[in-house]
């Protein structure tokens, strides 16, 4: 059952398009992230869902009911703002109790409800303070508390962790996931941090320039990016995207770029030849042996893995990752083996759509660091 639904929703201010013809259907109890670079329309989407912004056209439904004409307070939602938006002149306790007060919960019942939330978020000792007397993390918890004190149909969270330091962010991420599991409520979570989206969500909606690029579970977004934008956006280090020529000779597909030629697995019938873009995840390039010559340009040790940037004879640069301990020095020559079976193929252009079916088999373990040895013979020397 769809709990939250956008139907052809569009928001424009004059010529500026915030969100373009968005179709999105979120199931009840689902944790959905809206992910995308700054200015892609995440906040606008969320504010339209909250009723704080009117769609230029289209329909928004919550729980099967069209809410276009409902005020924010009538939509049975709770929201955590990017800026927290705590009421500065109220104490923490008054802040958390405010939604109850506005919904006519009798004074006597508010106390226990606030206390329950305060305990859950460890806010007990802070209840008497004003927001300005709290640290960023504490403010964030109060904002969360104000949303949790009611039991709304949908929770909307706009980058609630973006102001926290890395450690607290990791901690709060786990807390939120746990909270979602416990409450079983629909949550729409806005973020521009792909790690948050990948680790927390049931499904991720990736936006760019106000246009929905892909809406799928995290693993699928990673394994089967729907287009070139998603391919480049998801994954760190990001996917190698190589512009080149796609050609079919005698029933076999071949991709060529300066210094690189790859024999590809069969493509769907009707695939156009000519200009195309090949995508290779860093973990799908094997180092040490293989058909391609390359020179090490850059080595980055992160501790649990090593990021290697190599340069092909044609000047093309590829990023790869290997297990730590592989002694590589810049300038060193080595052979590499791209795993053509794992390659993604996109139409030419910055947002070219996906051309090939996703790879099957063991390679589907998306974040695997090691490269199967069998991949080494996939490429042909040029």
């Amino acid at each position, binding site marked *: 059952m769809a709990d939250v639904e956008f139907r052809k929703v569009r928001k424009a201010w004059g010529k500026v398009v915030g969100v373009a013809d968005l179709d999105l259907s979120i199931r009840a109890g689902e944790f959905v992230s809206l992910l995308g670079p700054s200015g892609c329309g995440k906040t606008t989407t969320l*504010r339209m869902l*909250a*009723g*704080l912004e009117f769609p230029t056209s289209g329909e928004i439904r919550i729980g099967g009911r069209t809410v276009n004409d409902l*005020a*924010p*307070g009538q939509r049975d*939602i*709770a*929201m955590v*703002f*990017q*800026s*927290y*938006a*705590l*009421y*500065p*002149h109220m104490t923490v306790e008054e802040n958390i109790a*405010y*939604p109850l007060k*506005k*919904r006519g919960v009798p004074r006597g019942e508010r106390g226990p409800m606030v206390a329950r939330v305060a305990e859950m978020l460890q806010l007990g000792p802070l209840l008497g303070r*004003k*927001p*300005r*007397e*709290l640290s*960023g993390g504490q*403010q964030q918890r109060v904002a969360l508390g*104000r949303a949790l004190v009611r039991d709304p149909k949908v929770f909307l969270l706009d980058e609630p962790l973006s*102001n926290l330091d890395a450690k607290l962010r990791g901690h709060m991420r786990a807390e939120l996931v746990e909270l979602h599991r416990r409450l079983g409520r629909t949550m729409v979570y806005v973020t521009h941090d792909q790690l948050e989206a990948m680790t927390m969500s049931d499904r991720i909606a990736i936006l760019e320039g106000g246009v929905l690029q892909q809406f799928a579970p995290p693993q699928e977004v990673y394994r089967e990016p729907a287009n070139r934008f998603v391919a480049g956006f998801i994954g760190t280090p990001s996917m190698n995207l190589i512009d080149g020529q796609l050609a079919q000779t005698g029933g076999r597909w071949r991709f060529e770029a300066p210094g690189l030629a790859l024999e590809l697995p069969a493509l769907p019938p009707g695939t156009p030849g000519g200009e195309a873009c090949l995508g290779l995840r860093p973990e799908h390039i094997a180092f040490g042996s293989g058909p391609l010559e390359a020179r090490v340009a850059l080595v980055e040790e992160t501790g649990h893995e090593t990021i290697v940037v190599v340069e092909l004879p044609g000047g093309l640069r590829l990023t790869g990752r290997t297990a730590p301990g592989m002694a590589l020095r810049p300038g060193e020559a080595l052979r590499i083996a791209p795993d053509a079976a794992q390659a993604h193929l996109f139409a030419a252009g910055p947002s070219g759509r996906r051309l090939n079916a996703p790879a099957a088999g063991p390679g589907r373990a998306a974040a695997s660091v090691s490269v199967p040895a069998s991949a080494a013979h996939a490429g042909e020397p040029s």
Partner: protein
Amino acid sequence: MARRVLFNLFAWSIVLAVAFPLFWMIVTSVKPQFELFRRPPTFLPDTVTFEHYRTLLARTNFMIYFRNSVILSTVTTFVVVFLATLGAYSLVRFRYRGRESLAFLVLFTYLLPSVVLIIPLYLMLVSLGLSNTILSLVIAYTTFALPYALWLLRSFMAGVPEDLESAALVDGASRLGAFRDVILPQLLPGIISTALFTFILSWNEYLYALVLVNSDGARPLTTGVMSMLISAFNIEWSLLMAASVMMSVPLIVAFAFLQSYLTRGFGAGGVKG
């Protein structure tokens, strides 16, 4: 070092120049009549008397003028603050065609010298049958206090984060409820500054009061005291000074009470910068 001394000397001479008339006003108001024009003048009065105050309160229209001024300034302040708060809210929060031009038009009316407006305004008030009433002055003062108040409050309003209001709306407040619960408390320093500004403006206004009102029942203090104590032949210095002291007291009291509000500023910290 020498520059510091020089600077201090300079600053103190300015303070003295500003404060001395006030000091002299108070001193004169408590000097007995015969001491007023003694030469050389006495800095501190030999004998302190409150007879001028008594005369003023008991035997003149001073209390009527005072009451008129209080009513006039209070009503004007309420009207101006009310309109300016709502106007500023509209100018900052709502989007509509011509919003910016409207704001500048308002500023432009403020830049017009008030002398230019006085005759048309007078004629309009006469045709409305309002001449010689306190209400006519309320209307007149509102016309020139409102533009400035609107601009002042507009900048204060712009400093209140929009997310606060959005949060209140999501939490179930109506627009008016969100305005009262969240925006108004944030706006309080701005409202108090605006109110003080308007009150002082109306309290001290002279020109419009002179032109629009010439009956004792509706006269405010400024023109009332003038016409009562200053004639072509004589100035009642001691009474004038006593009246001046009493005219200044309400403003000084108001400032003393509201000063902490004016300097306290916003309750920052609820929203990240």
